[in-house]
């Protein structure tokens, strides 16, 4: 027992602080594990929908449009692609290796039929739809089974892709 008396003047208790901490073990699942395993070797693996043949990257294990598993042979993709759309972000977030303002992009990788959300390191005034970009990888010795092996994308010296070639991905 303590003899410490609370101060009467503190006023009524109006707010209760309740800490919550829950620990989980998260599974990447079959499809993402395969993709991440390939990333450890510097490879980008897409998966083809058995119904319409379109290539998903990243794949979540099923074609959301047809509700079928994507369990066929993987398709290796280039680490180059086209910016479908983008945003310039001026709010900081942990873990993003770029300074504010930075660019987030939806990239259609060459050979893929879906967009990948990622970061783009470039002059924010230069970013535009159709811009050609390539992945900037971490040094090889730092590769792990992680999407973070790609630090960000960077512009490359290739002519812009025509709007019609990527407009369905916006």
């Amino acid at each position, binding site marked *: 027992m303590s003899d*410490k008396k609370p101060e009467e003047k503190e006023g009524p208790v109006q*707010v209760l602080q309740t800490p919550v901490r829950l620990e989980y073990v998260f599974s990447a699942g079959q499809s993402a*594990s395969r993709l991440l395993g390939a990333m450890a070797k510097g490879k980008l693996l897409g998966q083809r929908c058995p119904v319409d043949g379109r290539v998903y990257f990243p794949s979540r294990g099923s074609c959301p449009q047809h509700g079928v598993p994507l369990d066929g042979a993987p398709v290796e993709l280039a680490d180059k692609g086209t910016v479908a759309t983008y945003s310039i972000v001026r709010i900081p977030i942990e873990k993003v290796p770029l300074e504010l303002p930075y660019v987030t992009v939806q990239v259609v990788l060459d050979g893929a039929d879906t967009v990948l959300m990622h970061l783009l390191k470039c002059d924010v005034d230069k970013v535009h739809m159709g811009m050609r970009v390539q992945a900037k990888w971490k040094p090889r010795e730092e590769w792990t089974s992680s999407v973070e092996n790609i630090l960000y994308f960077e512009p490359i010296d290739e002519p812009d892709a025509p709007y019609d070639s990527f407009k369905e991905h916006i």
Partner: protein
Amino acid sequence: MSQIEKALTAPHVIEYTYKRSLGPVLSQFFTALRERRVVGVRRKDGTVLCPPKEYDPDTGESLGDMVPLKDTGVVTSWAWVAKPRPQQPLQKPFAYALIRLDGADTPLLHAVDAGSESRMKTSMRVRARWADTTTGAIRDIACFEPVD
């Protein structure tokens, strides 16, 4: 389906300290706890709820008539926790118990430090053991202890 392969796994933690505003009735309850007192609330039929609520759980009617209670009471049920988890109120074997405080008609849930399971008994009398520092929270009562 193709063969199931071993998947990658990783730890994932969700951690946040929520800030809960209390409203008038819970505010009085927690303010009293900070002062090492317990209050309940009177329902229309005269019975007293503790912990108090700002409404009658059966009818939805608003409540607000606060009633001072003793910090002693009687155990109406209990469960013996031999291996406490780190979040739980005591880090040695203890009982969770429903405790009807003197002056109240409904029991509240809390921990009882009885030392051993053999000392626990439904209808045993207990008294609040107050925390050294009180902040206005249910754990201002560290636990209850048997009254001999």
